[in-house]
C-alpha cells in the first residue's frame, strides 16, 4: 500500500503525525488504546494516593499530596484531549473503562497501606512511569508527544517528592524505617511489572516500535529502572526484596529476578487486590455525578437559547 509506505517514511524521517493527517487504522486504534489507557491510569491513579490525603501527617505533606493528585487529574485531561484528536470522546473512553473494556496500569490495583506507600508510589511508581514517558516525548503522534512534554516535567517533580518522603522515613524512627522497608517490599515487583511482560511475550511491540508509539522494549526499560533504583535504595539504607539481585561487572548492569508473571496476569484479569474497589469507586463517582453533569448541560442549553432569543 503506497499510502502506508509514505506514512511509514514520514515516521522514519522523524515527522510528527497530526490529527488531520492520513493514518492507518491500526495506528489510530493502537494509539487510542495506549493514550486512553494512560489517561485512565492518571485518573485511577488518584485513588491510592487519595486514600492518604485525609491522613497526611503534616499540613505541608497534605498540600504536596493534594498538588500531586491535582496534577494527575490534569494529566488525565491532557491525555483525553490528545485521544479526542483521534476521534474518540472522553465519555466514550470513560464508558469503556467502566465497562472493563479498557485497562489502566495494574500498579494501581495494589493498596496503599502506610504513609511510606506515598513515598514508594512517588519514588518507584512515578519513577517507572517516567522511564516509559520520557522517550514518548519523541513519539510520532504530535498531540501525544506534546502532552508527554508537559506531563514529564511534573512527573519528575513528583518522583523527587516521593523520594523525599522515603528519605524522611528511612532516617526516622524505627517504626518509620519499618514502614519504608515494608513499602519497598510490597511495591518492588509490582513496579517492575509496570513495564509489561518480557519482550518475547509482548504482543504489539514490533509494529508499535516501527510506528514510534513505543520507543523502547519492555526489558530495556525495566533494566534501566533497576539500574537507576537499586543505588537509590542503597542510599536510603533499604533492602530490595530480591535475594538474587547483584551487580554484574561484565554487563555493567544489575542482574535481578523476574517478577511473578502469574500474579501480573491475575491482576490484569481482574484479580488484583484492589481491582474491584478501584473500578467500583470510579463507577460510583460517575453514577453519582450524572445529575451534576446533566444539570450543567441543561443550564448551558437554557443560557444558550436565552442568548439566541435575546438577539
Amino acid at each position, binding site marked *: 500500500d503506497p499510502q502506508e509506505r509514505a506514512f511509514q517514511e514520514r515516521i522514519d524521517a522523524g515527522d510528527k503525525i497530526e490529527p488531520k493527517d492520513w493514518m492507518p487504522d491500526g495506528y489510530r486504534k493502537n494509539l487510542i488504546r495506549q493514550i486512553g489507557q494512560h489517561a485512565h491510569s492518571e485518573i485511577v491513579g*488518584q485513588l491510592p494516593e487519595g486514600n492518604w490525603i485525609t491522613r497526611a501527617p503534616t499540613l505541608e505533606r497534605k498540600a504536596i499530596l*493534594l498538588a500531586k493528585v491535582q496534577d494527575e*487529574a490534569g494529566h488525565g485531561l491532557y491525555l483525553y484531549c490528545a485521544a479526542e484528536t483521534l476521534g474518540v470522546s472522553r465519555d466514550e473512553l470513560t464508558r469503556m473503562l467502566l465497562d472493563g473494556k479498557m485497562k489502566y496500569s495494574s500498579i494501581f490495583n495494589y493498596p496503599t497501606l502506610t504513609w511510606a506507600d506515598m513515598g514508594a508510589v512517588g519514588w518507584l511508581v512515578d519513577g517507572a512511569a517516567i522511564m516509559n514517558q520520557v522517550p514518548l516525548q519523541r513519539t510520532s503522534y504530535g498531540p501525544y508527544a506534546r502532552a508527554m512534554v508537559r506531563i514529564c516535567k511534573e512527573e519528575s517533580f513528583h518522583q523527587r517528592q516521593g523520594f523525599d518522603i522515603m528519605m524522611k522515613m528511612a532516617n526516622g524512627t524505627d517504626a518509620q524505617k519499618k514502614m519504608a522497608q515494608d513499602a519497598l517490599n510490597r511495591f518492588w515487583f509490582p513496579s517492575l511489572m509496570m513495564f509489561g511482560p518480557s519482550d518475547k511475550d509482548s504482543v504489539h511491540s514490533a509494529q508499535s516500535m516501527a510506528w514510534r508509539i513505543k520507543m523502547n522494549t519492555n526489558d530495556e526499560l525495566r533494566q534501566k529502572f533497576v539500574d537507576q533504583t537499586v543505588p537509590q535504595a542503597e542510599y536510603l539504607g533499604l533492602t530490595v526484596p530480591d535475594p538474587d539481585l547483584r551487580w554484574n561487572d561484565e554487563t555493567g548492569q544489575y542482574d535481578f529476578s523476574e517478577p511473578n508473571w502469574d500474579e501480573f496476569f491475575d491482576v490484569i484479569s481482574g484479580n488484583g487486590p484492589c481491582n474491584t474497589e478501584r473500578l467500583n469507586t470510579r463507577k460510583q463517582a460517575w453514577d453519582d455525578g450524572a445529575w451534576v453533569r446533566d444539570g450543567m448541560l441543561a443550564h448551558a442549553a437554557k443560557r444558550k437559547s436565552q442568548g439566541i432569543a435575546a438577539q
Partner: protein
Amino acid sequence: MSDGLFQFLLRMGDNTLVLGHRISEWCGQAPGLEEDIALANTALDLIGQTQMWLGYAAEVEGAGRTADDLAFLRDVWDFRNLLMLERPNLDFGHTITRQFFFDAFHVLLLTRLQASSDARVAEIAAKSVKEAAYHLERSADLVIALGDGTDESHQRMQSAVDLLWPFAGEMFAADDVDNAMAAAGIAPDPASLRAEWQRKVDQVMADATLTLPESQFAHQGGKTGRQHTEHLGHMLAQMQWLQRAYPGATW
C-alpha cells in the same frame, strides 16, 4: 488581647483546615475531571491558608507549638471552626452549596482583614483573598447552574440550601472574641458583613431559581468550641491518626 487574637486566628485557621479536609475527601470521586481538579485546587488553597493562620496562631500563643501541633494534636473541644464546615459532604450539591455560603462570607471577611491593624493578619488576608474570590466565582456559578439545571439538580440544590441554611447564621454571630477584635481594629464585627453577604446570596439564589428558608434559627457552638457536631471527632480520628500513633516522628 493575645488570647483573643489566638482564638481569632484559630477560628480562621480551623475554618480553612476543616473545610480543606472535607473538600479533599472528594479526591478522584468528583462528577467530572474538571471538578476533580477544581476541588483539589480549592483544598490545596485552603490548606495553604491554614498553614499561615495556624502558623501565626502558634506564634501568638508563644507556647512552642507549631501549626502542625495545632492541626494534629488538639481534640474536638479546642477546635474553633464553624459547624457548617465540619458537616459531611453528602452529595456534590451539598458540598457546593456549603462552599458558596462560606466563600461569600470568606471573601467579605478577608477583604476587610486586609485593612487589619495587625500587619500579619492583613498580610495573610491579602495573600488569601484572591484565592477566595476565585472559589466564590466558581461555587456561585455552580450553584446557579445546578439550581437552574434539570428538575433533579434543582431539587437536590434546594434540599442542600434547606439543610445548610440553619448553619449559615453562625458566621455572623459575634461574641467577646469578635468584640475584642473589632475594638482593636484587628477584624470586623462579623455581624457587619451580613447585609452584603445576604445581597450576594439573594442574587445567586434568584439566578439559581432557589429559595432560602424563612427561619432565622442558627446553630451555634463551633466557633466558640462549646458544642461541635458528632462529625468533627470522626474527622479528627482520621486527620490526626499518624501524629497520634507515632508521636514525635518527623515526616
